[in-house]
């Protein structure tokens, strides 16, 4: 029986879309208001999907308390109420688009020991979302 378990989390963070490899005009043209120099923010929602056998003793793919603690430590503590460009090392070089955010959060969560990470899905706003399932 193939089962996926999905848990949804939220964090609020500031970011600015700006590439050092582009001129100011190109950044402005490409990223529009997302390139404003002081940055802006979002309420992000993150869906973490796990798969694996259902443990016969617990009836669970993974203990949610363990997953919550892991996601809290690896992602929420590092991202919630932070400036992604300045306070998350991966975004000192990479632009913190939601695409790159998916890849970074997947990288941080794929070592979860109790189950296999299937997918990370992020809603930047209610109107757009991005998914990453690894390579």
């Amino acid at each position: 029986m193939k089962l996926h378990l999905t848990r949804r989390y939220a964090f609020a963070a500031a970011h600015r879309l700006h590439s050092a490899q582009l001129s100011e005009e190109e950044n402005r043209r490409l990223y529009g208001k997302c390139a404003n120099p002081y940055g802006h923010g979002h309420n992000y929602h993150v869906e973490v999907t796990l798969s694996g056998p259902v443990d016969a003793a617990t009836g669970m793919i993974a203990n949610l308390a363990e997953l919550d603690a892991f996601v809290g430590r690896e992602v929420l503590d590092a991202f919630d109420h932070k400036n992604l460009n300045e306070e998350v090392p991966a975004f000192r070089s990479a632009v913190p688009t939601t695409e790159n955010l998916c890849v970074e959060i997947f990288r941080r969560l794929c070592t979860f020991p109790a189950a296999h990470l299937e997918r990370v899905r992020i809603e930047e706003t209610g109107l757009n979302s991005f998914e990453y399932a690894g390579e």
Partner: protein
Amino acid sequence: MIYLTRKIEFSAAHYYHNPAWSPEENARVFGKCANLKGHGHNYVLEVTVAGTPDPVTGMVLDLKELKEILEREIMQRMDHRHLNHEVPELAGKIPTTENVAATIWNLLQPKITKGKLHRVRLYENPDLFVDCFGDGR
């Protein structure tokens, strides 16, 4: 291939308890879900059927028929019930979202004869859901 999804909601009580364990072990693993007096949820169930539309009716299956199957197999069994005590298919199982989703799959799969059951998605609350694909995918 067309994927058709129908959604229903049911409310039920449950608790998590492994009789092979001490009360302390149950409390450690299951936290507040181990309270033997039980608690409840408004479950949301999305049932997805895959198929090709019938050339005459334009339908994968008759939605009215699917609605009746869901009413008979799920609503009458689980709505306003206690999952630990009143659902024979869950007897001896801990009614986690994983086990309830798999049980719903097993109840629906043989009943859906037009198209093929593709996915059962069960939300325990808006922040937690389980997808069951049977042996497929």
